């Protein structure tokens, strides 16, 4: 009792698409999956001919599929793009060192240039050392803030016109939920944007897989035999996202369209003018995009270097007090030294 492919190509269906409920054969699924990403790229004007685009590559399923599909579409539809891979080495032994091997495999398979930037060279700290300093809580804050900026720095060094990330539909629906649950209106406003940044001094980020379901990405990678890395980070997983994710997966079981529905809701939200909007500027210290002064990366880094790793965690006023206290202590100690030296 095999089910036939819905597109009446005469072949046997191999999967049920969660997005449409259609039963498709391998070839028709590949064609539909790729055509939808092409449609997203074209209808949202993500790229222009002649541009250089960095694919943010972690070695995981999403970025591996993204690199594969972008290369394919670039060739078949003649986008005229120069694609490069950009990876960040957070310095997590037993995790990132292994996944970077996958990225190197991508580089060889897809014949794309690869740039790897490490936290070590950018910030003087690896995640291993940061965790040794701060422990297993809040470490994801450091990693997330540093990675965001590291991608900007890498993109600048490469001189690219945009950064393509592998965020998929499930990721975006999860983020909408999380931002609603946290009342984070600033992020809620922009988290469904397919293109962010791109002002005078920022490099735009684009999400070509924004409407691609995770199940389809995994099935695509499986049927295309793409090699990807799938180990959980050795440091504590992001618990809050984990809850949102489990909730969403439960909903999806009952109603597969829920993922697209949540993204749609996020896209259609409008905010009152009285809702505060963060002003995007540039950090006076490091010169990279930020809506705070100094930027979060600089505050976190200062905390690490001062031996006050909690500095950038929690309220800014608390951090300011910590700095003031430390400065006072240092001043006192210096005065005491001066007094001693007077003798």
């Amino acid at each position, binding site marked *: 009792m095999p*089910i036939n492919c819905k597109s009446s190509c005469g072949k*046997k*269906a*191999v*999967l*049920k698409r969660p997005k449409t409920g259609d*039963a498709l054969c391998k070839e028709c699924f590949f064609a539909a999956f790729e055509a939808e990403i092409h449609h997203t790229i074209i209808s949202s004007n993500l790229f222009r001919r002649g541009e250089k685009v960095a694919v943010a590559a*972690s070695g*995981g*399923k*999403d*970025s591996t599929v993204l690199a594969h599909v972008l290369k394919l579409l670039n060739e078949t539809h003649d986008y005229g793009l120069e694609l490069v891979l950009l990876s960040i080495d957070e310095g997590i032994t037993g995790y990132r060192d292994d*996944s970077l091997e996958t990225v190197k495999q991508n580089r060889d398979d897809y014949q794309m240039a690869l740039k790897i930037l490490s936290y070590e060279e950018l910030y003087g700290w690896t995640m291993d050392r940061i965790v040794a300093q701060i422990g297993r809580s809040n470490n994801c804050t450091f990693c997330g803030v540093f990675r965001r900026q590291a991608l900007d720095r890498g993109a600048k060094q490469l001189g690219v016109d945009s950064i393509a990330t*592998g965020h998929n539909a499930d*990721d975006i629906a999860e983020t909408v939920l999380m931002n609603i649950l946290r009342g984070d209106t600033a992020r809620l406003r922009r988290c469904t944007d397919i293109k962010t940044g791109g002002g005078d001094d920022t490099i735009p980020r684009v999400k070509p897989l924004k409407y691609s379901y*995770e*199940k389809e990405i*995994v*099935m695509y990678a*499986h*049927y295309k035999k793409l090699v*990807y*890395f*799938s*180990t*959980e*980070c050795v440091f504590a997983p992001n618990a809050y996202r984990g809850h949102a*994710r*489990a909730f969403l*997966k*439960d909903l*999806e*079981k009952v109603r597969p369209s829920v993922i697209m529905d949540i993204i749609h809701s996020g896209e259609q939200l409008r905010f009152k003018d009285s809702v505060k909007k963060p002003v995007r500027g540039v950090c006076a210290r490091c010169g990279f995009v930020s809506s705070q002064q100094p930027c979060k990366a600089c505050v976190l880094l200062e905390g690490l270097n001062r031996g006050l790793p909690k500095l950038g965690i929690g309220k800014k006023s608390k951090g300011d007090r910590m700095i003031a206290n430390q400065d006072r202590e240092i001043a006192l100690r210096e005065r005491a030294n001066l007094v001693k030296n007077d003798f």
Partner: protein
Amino acid sequence: MSAKELQINLEFSAGAELLFGNIKRRKLSLDGTVKWTVASLLKWMHANILTERPELFLQGDTVRPGILVLINDTDWELLGELEYELQPNDNVLFISTLHGG
């Protein structure tokens, strides 16, 4: 292979193997005198080879949402899911989508 055995292959990938002693491929010989469905296979797996945190693999009497099941490389959603009756030499693959990104 005796006629009273049902031989099938199990495969785990993308992190699902971590819950099963980190073994990616297994050959099983099940009692061939009874009917085996995916539902009864999951029960058998829980009782015999699911070593690590069963709640990450099972939810109620089915697999946890986010774990894909392919039988002979076909999505189990096209095959009746839990009710599918296992045939000799079937290949059942579990892919986790819950790991990494």
